[in-house]
């Protein structure tokens, strides 16, 4: 496989990803890369998107696991209130699955239990 299909490239820096686009090395993540992954997902990052992405990164940092959507909704609700801890709100930001898409942008593995 050539670099273009198995990695993100920014200014000749290569970031390897798996076949679904999830970053292989969590520690390589940076904001510029997040913007690039988001572009691939056809998402334009707004402060609301960043809020979810940063929230996921903090969650992973604490628990070493990417939360399933149901868990994400509940945890968001607790931190940001019912307006944002809401499945519909998250789907509006990340139409192809908030947990999957936002985790990819956050540089995290695909959530366990994403069936």
């Amino acid at each position, binding site marked *: 496989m050539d670099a273009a299909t198995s990695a993100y490239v920014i200014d000749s820096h290569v970031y390897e990803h798996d076949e679904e686009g999830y970053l292989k090395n969590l520690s390589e993540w940076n904001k510029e890369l997040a913007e690039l992954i988001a572009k691939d997902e056809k998402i334009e990052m707004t402060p609301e998107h960043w809020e979810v992405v940063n929230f996921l990164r903090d969650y992973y940092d604490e628990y*070493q696991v990417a939360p399933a959507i149901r868990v994400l909704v*509940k945890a968001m609700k607790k931190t940001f209130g019912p307006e944002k801890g809401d499945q519909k709100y998250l789907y509006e930001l990340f139409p192809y699955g908030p947990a999957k898409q936002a985790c990819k942008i956050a540089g995290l593995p695909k959530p366990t239990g994403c069936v």
Partner: protein
Amino acid sequence: MADDAQQQVKKSFMYVNRKAPYGTIYALEALEVVLISAAFEQDVSLAFLDDGVFQLVKGQNTAGIGMKNFSPTFKALGDYEIRQLYVERESLEERGLTSEDLMEITWEDEEDDYAKKPSIRIVSRMELTEVMAQQDVLLNF
């Protein structure tokens, strides 16, 4: 209607962890299965016995063995509505461990202003046998 149908198929699943956290893949695989199964809204509990009790020991550090320290993930179980972690007292004692050696694992009670409540229950071998006998499904790892 749909709720009724779901109620009828709700079963109690207990995941029985008998092996030390690292060295084999059993502990990590069991935890992943548990997280996946949580999506199906069944009644899930975990049991830790034999060397499985080491999975819950606090202060794990895997830097020297090049494996991911997945012990913090047990603390996320409450978010997945898994609130019953049974630990066999005899297995702890045989290994010179007490409840003090275990991580604090809690779940948050939304009905009670997110009060943190303990998920770990230390039970005797006899008590665990009884809890096991009540399960619909036991899965051993």
